[in-house]
């Protein structure tokens, strides 16, 4: 861990702070323009600045992982002498059971955990929006059938589905994990979108678009969905956090991201047996998850207050 790495970390922190500040100002300017003259006071949950900063920091670390870490995440430094070494200057977060540097694994693990969370949630949002829009717009049989499918999906606890599905495949490649998480997370979103679409389709602009002879799906894409964007984005922000927690749970049960690829979840799982003697191996990835999910929840709350004026005072 030499000076270049420390410099890179400090640079990442500074950049995150600056980016958070910039984003907040930009956002506030937009909000001020949107609510100008309505007399509504724009309120923000506390800590949004820190939340954005945390997110930017972890994303930056994930993207620039080779710059901020001295070792490859799977490099076993000295399997006899450097096993479970406590934090020190050379290894700021200590080493784990296989004498791998925890900070390096955390940084590369950010790539996997964040990517899995983002991609799976995007997939879930897409499928959920499509299903919900179809059900809400076409109604009758389409609605009945689709909503029964959603009911079935919501009827089984997710961990159950995931355990069984993980058992179905001998070993889950990352793509399969993303698909699995995404395809089991869209049910609530579809309900949400359906509710929105049901109200929207009665509005004038939809009626006039239909009168003008537009195709159904075209109307859905161009007129209905953009208005659903607001709650969808909110559920996206909150959903990423849920998926990350789920990925951690799956890895804890042994069926998530496969080694040696690090993910925050499987780092916690591997460190579990050392919790009493080398707690840093479990504590730090756990802390990372908590921070990121907290940040995502805060940002989600902010977005909900900002984008959806009907959501109630915060």
């Amino acid at each position, binding site marked *: 861990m030499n000076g270049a790495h420390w410099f890179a970390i400090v640079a990442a922190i500074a950049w995150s702070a600056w980016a958070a500040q910039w984003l907040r100002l930009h956002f506030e300017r937009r909000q001020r323009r949107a609510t100008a003259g309505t007399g509504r006071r724009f309120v923000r949950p*506390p800590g949004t600045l820190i939340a954005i900063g945390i997110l930017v920091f972890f994303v930056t670390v994930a993207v620039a992982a080779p710059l901020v870490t001295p070792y490859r995440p799977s490099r076993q430094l000295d399997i006899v002498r450097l096993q479970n070494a406590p934090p020190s200057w050379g290894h700021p977060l200590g080493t784990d059971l296989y004498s791998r540097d925890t900070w390096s694994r955390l940084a590369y693990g950010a790539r996997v955990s964040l990517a899995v969370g983002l991609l799976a949630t995007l997939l879930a949002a897409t499928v959920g929006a499509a299903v919900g829009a179809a059900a809400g717009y076409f109604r009758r049989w389409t609605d009945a059938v689709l909503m029964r499918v959603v009911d*079935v999906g919501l009827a*089984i606890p997710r961990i159950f589905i995931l355990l069984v599905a993980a058992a179905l495949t001998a070993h889950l490649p990352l793509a399969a994990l993303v698909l699995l998480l995404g395809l089991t997370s869209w049910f609530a979103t579809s309900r949400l979108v359906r509710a929105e679409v049901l109200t929207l389709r009665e509005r004038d602009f939809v009626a006039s678009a239909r009168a003008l002879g537009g195709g159904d799906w075209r109307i859905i894409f161009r007129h209905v969905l953009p208005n659903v964007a607001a709650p969808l984005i909110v559920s996206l922000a909150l959903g990423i956090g849920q998926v990350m927690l789920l990925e951690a749970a799956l890895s804890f049960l042994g069926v998530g991201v496969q080694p040696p690829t690090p993910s925050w979840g499987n780092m916690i799982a591997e460190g579990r047996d050392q919790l009493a003697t080398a707690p840093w191996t479990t504590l730090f990835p756990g802390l990372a998850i908590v921070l990121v999910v907290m940040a995502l929840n805060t940002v989600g709350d902010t977005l909900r207050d900002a984008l959806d004026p009907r959501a109630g005072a915060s």
Partner: protein
Amino acid sequence: MATWLLRRLAAALAIVFAVVTLGFLAIHLAPGTPFLPSDERTIDPGVLAALRSRFGVDQPLPVQYGRYLNALAHGDLGVSFSQRRPVAAALADAVPNTLLLAGTALAVDLLLGLALGTYQASHARRRMDTGIRAATLTLYSLPVFWLALVLLLVFGERLHWLPAGGMRDPVLSTAAPFAARLVDRLRHLVLPALTLGLVGAAGTARYQRAAMLEALNQEFVRAARAKGLSERRVVWVHALRNALLPAITMVGLALPFLLTGAVLVETVFAWPGMGKLTADAIAARDYPVVTATALLASILVVAGSTLADLLYAAADPRIRTRDA
């Protein structure tokens, strides 16, 4: 009302049937076979074949499915491969344990969450509110198994204040007087119920805060204040009653999860409930138990959401007039 109930019932049956079929297919198609030893022993192929034949696992899938449905229609849930006794007996042992844990966790969840949320709303945007918001946000974002591990380590192993897992002390449970045994049971209950309850309470508090704030903005609250009622009565009696609806729906929806899905907490604390039974059954490919759990889970979810709808309709007369 009657037609609504009948329609819901029909839909419920369809959902349960679909879930059971999916569960059946999924576990039977999973690679691996039941009856394998869990430690490093070999198994004689003749013995394996005999076991598979004895339990009907070597039949083609449609035959097994048909037999299963037939047995189910007669109320027979099958025999567990791992426990070598009827599945009903295995469930009968596990369900009360989960009910105890889930019930306690739900109580903690509701009491703490509702109280916190209401308190937050009545002190909105002041220091206590912000502090509690930060706390609930943290709890809500914790991986629940991580919290469980940490609590177990700190209170169970390091401080020895509470037992390190299990449901009761096997020695005390037969020898000690009633009071000591009760205390022992309660001591074993604290950590798992707290883990589940705290995380749930954080979520409930968030919802309750928003619902209470909305209730407090209503006309009738202003009227109550104008009438001279104390702030405490206004908040904790009148506004709360109106803000309870979301909490009620949440109970209906949360119950099935707590009953069947607390896999992580039950695993960490070695609590012999439904979640652990399910996870073990999936790992051991214990087909009858897995399908029975799927059946139970789906029944509970459907019942729970129907109950929630009924409660909602009973509580809010406005909803009753609008048919679902």
